[in-house]
């Protein structure tokens, strides 16, 4: 496999109840998929703070995947809807920062959907591969203030992320 294809680094935030178990199931079923996504377990997709995503991109990830239970099937009743709201906000922020919004993706995978999760991962890896490297660390080095600037934006937007019902 010694060639020059770009291998994107992707961080995946998977909820403990559905997606992480879907990934476990993909393993148990020996379904092969791209090794590019590195998984971090959170209790719920609703726990994914927008700053996690930005931090990952700033530290050198080329893409971030958030995976949760299907809408209506959240272990915590409906917290994945909150993840969904933040996701659109995040895409908006990425655009504002001049980044490709497709570098983040939200997917649903129930604990029974190992195959589907694997397919989502393969698809996302291919899509990010097409986008090419993000190279944010390089930019960041040139301008050390950038991460702080981004974090500030995140904080600023955060209030608008949650709408009181």
């Amino acid at each position, binding site marked *: 496999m010694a060639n020059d294809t770009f291998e994107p680094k992707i961080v995946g935030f998977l909820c403990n109840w559905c997606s992480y178990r879907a990934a476990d199931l*993909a393993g148990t079923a020996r*379904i092969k998929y791209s090794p590019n996504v*590195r998984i971090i377990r959170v209790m719920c997709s609703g*726990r*994914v703070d927008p700053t996690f995503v930005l*931090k990952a991109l700033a530290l*050198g990830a080329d893409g971030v995947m958030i995976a949760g239970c299907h809408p209506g099937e959240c272990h*915590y009743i409906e917290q994945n809807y909150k993840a969904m709201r933040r996701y659109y906000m995040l895409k908006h922020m990425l655009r504002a920062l001049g980044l490709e919004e497709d570098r983040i993706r939200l997917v649903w995978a*129930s604990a029974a959907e190992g195959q589907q999760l694997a397919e989502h991962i393969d698809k996302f890896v291919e899509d990010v591969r097409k986008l090419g490297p993000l190279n944010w*660390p390089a930019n960041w080095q040139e301008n050390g203030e950038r991460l702080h600037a981004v974090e500030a934006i995140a904080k600023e937007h955060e209030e608008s992320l949650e709408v009181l019902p």
Partner: protein
Amino acid sequence: MAERVGVYVCHCGSNIAGMVDVEEVARWAGANLKDVVVARDYKFMCSSLGQAMIEEDIKKEGLTRVVVAACSPHLHEKTFRRACENAGLNPYLCQMTNIREHVSWVSKDRAKATEKARALVAAAVERVKHQAPLEPFFVKVNPATLVIGGGIAGLQATLELADAGYPVYLVERTPSIGGHMAQFDKTFPTLDCSACILTPKMSEAGQHPNVTLFTYAEVEEVSGSVGHFRVKIRKKARYVEEDKCTGCGICVEKCPRKVVDHDFEAGLGYRKAIYTPFPQAVPRIPVIDVESCIWFERQKCRACEKLCPTGAINFDQKDEEITLDVGNIIVATGWKMFDCKKIPQYGYGRLANVFTALEFERMCNAAGPTGGKIVLRDGKTEPQSVAIIHCVGSRDSNHNEYCSGICCMAALKFGHLVLEKTKAEVYSFYIDMRTNQKGYEEFYHRLLEEGMHFVRGKVAEVTDAARRPEEAGKLIIQVEDTLMGKQRRIPVDMVILMGALEPQADAKELGLKLGISCSMAGWYTERHPKLDPVATMTDGIFVAGVCQGPKDIPASVAQGAAAAARVMAMITKGDVMIEPVVASIIEEKCSGCRICNNLCPYNAIEYDAEKQVSRVITAMCKGCGTCVAACPAGAITGAHFSNEQVFAEIEGILWDAVHGNGGAGVKEGQPVSA
């Protein structure tokens, strides 16, 4: 003071080592990751020797943190936490990372798999350094249990618990317990009478001092958690007062309104507007069906009320809400049959003599609408030929991909009953004959000898469009006989459709109330498909019977008993440990904006109006962390998933990228292997 981290990389035989260079990962972690003082690989970390190795290192090397790179934490997190605890280390200072399910089993390239494993180990090491010791909570377990569903699985669970001396609340949606089994005539493969083996259990449950029955009732709301659930049930108005009714049946006899019974009789028979579903119903208290009662329709009649000798009829009765406190819940809600009209080419609903399996069960039943006679829809003609079609709505991606499991045997049972009771020829149209339990294959052989015809092929259509004179007036089965490789048209008088078992229409809705998940098909998901088939992901909630997946009566009974045994273990132990993964609010930082209050799905955050801050009610928090992510002031911390910990994990997981950018986290003066 710097932490002292131990890293343990498991081979899992060749499960991990076959695809990941585990020795290299351990060597690399020891050489490159800051604060790692011990890094080892071992054949089976979960073995007692592996655990002993960790315990010894904690003591000898003074480890303050432990990272185990092995399988999924859902399998062995408890094992390694216990090992740490044994060696005097707080169990929450141990972090597992999953390099088996998430790496070795899903990768094809050894170098890339090894690289991914390194990143995961680095992430765990960075994270574990920020973890804090936590103390679990303990909750007392209420010895009362709620069983939802009074079919055979729920009944079995109820009786096991009740006989062991524990109180059980059994909630059943229909007016009587008994479930589908009460509708059946015979049970395969022994052909013993279904009612004869079921009704003793029903009356036992009805009379047991430890069992409280709530029939014609549904679960409305579930709160609390393992050990102390609070359940609201709604008892629908029967319009009959239970304490006054003696079950004499005069009201049913005198009721002037007769309607088709689509429930118990599957549409083949009738019931009155006031009815008990069947003679052996438990309890024997009738209900008034508001939809068909003349009083509710046009304020006339009340014959039942006038004639009831004990004055039990009460037209003013209202639904009643009852709150129950229980320690555990067993879900045994069963199944419904596939709507055969969804396959129009089989003609159900259009062609009179196409029957569903449930209709046919009722037809065979001596207590059923035809008195056990097998006749056509006209109620008198005996069929001369009967076709039984398997896999109607099962093993079909257009409907349900799964195999319903029981239909082959039920079809053989039907075949036997037709051969026994009529002179008809019987055809079975099957894709694969599945008879894989005790005595089942033998039963198949018996039917071969009895002269049932077996045609291997999924029926394409059932039609009344005759092509030849001999087909006129018949139902024609058009099928490819796959063993002959030829299309055939077989005229018959009666067709029985073996409809798929499907989850109850509201299975997802109930799952949501209980906080348990369903598979894509809608069956409740067990904790582990092999090793924990009765528990669910939610502690204190167990599943039994078909609601977890299609199964036959023996398996349902076994699972009901198993669920009861699990509940008894909880009750006997007396208390249950709760993971301390909860949120807490730092009052000084809280601005009192109350955003978190409405976000919490469990209403676990209250607002202190006096201090103008929000506060987490620890006992109610389930630790999802949504509030943590949402707090604009960063005032909420999620124990074991704090921002700090996740940030560190992100930094670690992107170790190679970060390292390319200046080598953050790298041991000084150490060589770095790529």
